[in-house]
């Protein structure tokens, strides 16, 4: 039974939760591989600059490791390659060579972990489906910055693992877990909590699909709304509301 983790930016793919995900999938009996989309360096630089300004250089350095004398962090790609697990690199996920290589792996499951938008041609490959961790409680909160939007509205935050379909965050829900806001929480800390929960739920969902025990809850389009990146004015409001909820305000 093979699971392929789909992600991007292999040279800076150092977040520890992804290596834990790979390890936990292996411990659960899955053969693990990875499929990376790797946009042209110019496009990555452009996206990084737009998102972070000149801070992108600092962010790049911290992701690669080696800043402040710390040891360079292991990327998921190198971790897998050390274990002789297949790693496919592609400019675009649906380019012919990447699709051929993916099909040759005969994946049973794709697990999205910070991937680009996944084309239908890729979603169609795995036997059991493609699963995604969404950092919001579906169906209500679809789209982007959903943790921030949930806090803005005074709603619970949490993680949903769902099957991926042609829509955006509209596939069948497999597992969902609320995350309590605790004293001192910031959005940064909540993100870390989301990653920990997501890792566990992804593995549980993978096992459920493999064993035929997964419960699928379809979503209706009208039950949720599509959210987008939060304007800075609204983000400040969300931060203030989080600070209050976390006993910091």
């Amino acid at each position, binding site marked *: 039974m093979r699971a392929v983790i789909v992600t991007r930016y292999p040279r800076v793919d150092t977040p520890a939760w992804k290596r834990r995900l790979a390890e936990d999938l292996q411990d659960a009996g899955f053969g693990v591989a990875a499929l990376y989309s790797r946009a042209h360096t110019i496009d990555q*630089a*452009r996206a990084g*600059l*737009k*998102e*972070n*300004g000149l801070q992108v250089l600092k962010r790049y350095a911290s992701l690669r490791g080696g800043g402040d004398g710390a040891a360079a962090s292991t990327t998921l790609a190198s971790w897998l390659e050390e274990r002789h697990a297949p790693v496919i690199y592609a400019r675009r996920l649906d380019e012919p060579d990447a699709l051929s290589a993916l099909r040759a792996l005969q994946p049973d499951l794709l697990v999205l972990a910070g991937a680009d938008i996944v084309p239908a041609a890729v979603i169609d490959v795995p036997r059991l489906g493609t699963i995604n961790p969404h950092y919001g409680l579906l169906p209500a909160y679809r789209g*982007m910055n959903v943790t921030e*939007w949930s806090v*803005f*509205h005074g709603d619970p935050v949490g993680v949903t693992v769902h099957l991926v379909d042609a829509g955006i965050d509209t596939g069948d829900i497999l597992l969902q877990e609320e995350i309590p806001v605790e004293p001192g929480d910031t959005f940064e800390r909540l993100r870390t909590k989301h990653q920990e929960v997501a890792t566990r739920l992804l593995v549980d969902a993978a096992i459920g699909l493999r064993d035929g025990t997964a419960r699928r809850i379809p979503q209706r389009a009208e039950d949720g*709304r*599509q*959210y*987008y*990146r*939060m*304007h*800075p*004015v*609204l983000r400040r*409001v969300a931060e203030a509301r989080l600070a209050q909820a976390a006993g910091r305000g």
Partner: protein
Amino acid sequence: MPVRPRLLALSALAPRDAVRLVTEQFVPRPSGLNAQALDDAVAWLARTHDVTGRQGSSKGLSLVHGWLPAYPETTGYVLEVLLWFAQRRDGQEHLVERAKAMADWEVSLQEPDGGVMEGAVGTQPRRSIVFNTGQVLHGWLTLLENGHTGYEEAAERAAHFLVKHMQEDGTWRPEVEYSGMPHTYNSRVAWAMLRYARHAGDGAVQDAARRQLEWTAAQQQPNGWFRHCIFKSGMNPSTHGIAYTLRGLLEASLIADEPRWRQAVERTSEVLIRKLEISERLVADWDETWQPAAAHSCLTGTAQLGGVWLRLYAASGDARWLNAGLKAVDQAARHQETHGREIKGALAGSFPIWGRYAPFQYPNWATRFLAESLMLHEDAVAGLGR
């Protein structure tokens, strides 16, 4: 500004926008508005009144041709902005006087049939046009609703002109239509008619307005795109015309308590806020499958859409519209001129400035809609603190 300095300005502004076109691919968008943005926009609108000898608001400044003649259609809604601004700032009574002077000028120009002329002053032959009549009706009504008298007869004549020339299906006769064709953006006219009907208790005007709005709503495709949302045949709908259409439907839905029209606005808006998110700069024109049909942005349209979404937020409480509204207003305001004796405070027709919509011009309506959206932005942000 004599011709040579204007051409010099043009030769500086075009390269500036060329640089911005490149850097927008790489540089994070600055957030936050210039604190002087609204005041500067209103000051520029007052200047458009001065340059005509206080005979209406100039159609705008062309960097090639200079200040353009006074334009009755847009003067009708420019005066509203002056009045609203005066209501929120101390010591702006002079703007109320300007608004009244503009409204009086409009009365003096009103056609014998009750309509308002096509084009700027000097356009020949003169004929009454539905859309223009509706916009001036808005101006007179805003003064009447704020306790200023003397416009009742002019408003009545305008409203009755609109009823008289409406056809059974809610469109107007070609001879009183711009380009001789029906337009969904006339929902803004219907909005004015509903305002009039509410003010005067005129059921016939109300019924006619509803017919227009039902026709407009019926032009919407399942994907949110509107047929007949164009100014001339052979064009694609622009954000300017789309925003007119949406704003008319939205405000009418609130006056008439008709949720279907607001739902129509939401249907199109869902598409556009996604476009705004993906592209980060809304282009001007869109085809029937919502593919971009232009490279330039119509800054008027972007500012107007910001206003639509801020009003939609006020009506619905859905903060997604607030989010999109703030972003759209930011996007338009980013291009407001902050220097230049004749252009400080003004918004160009297009970004880049050579774009197809009013190239190398600062239309008075672009700054007018920016000013209104800045006021709505101010109110929305203030409301967050409550």
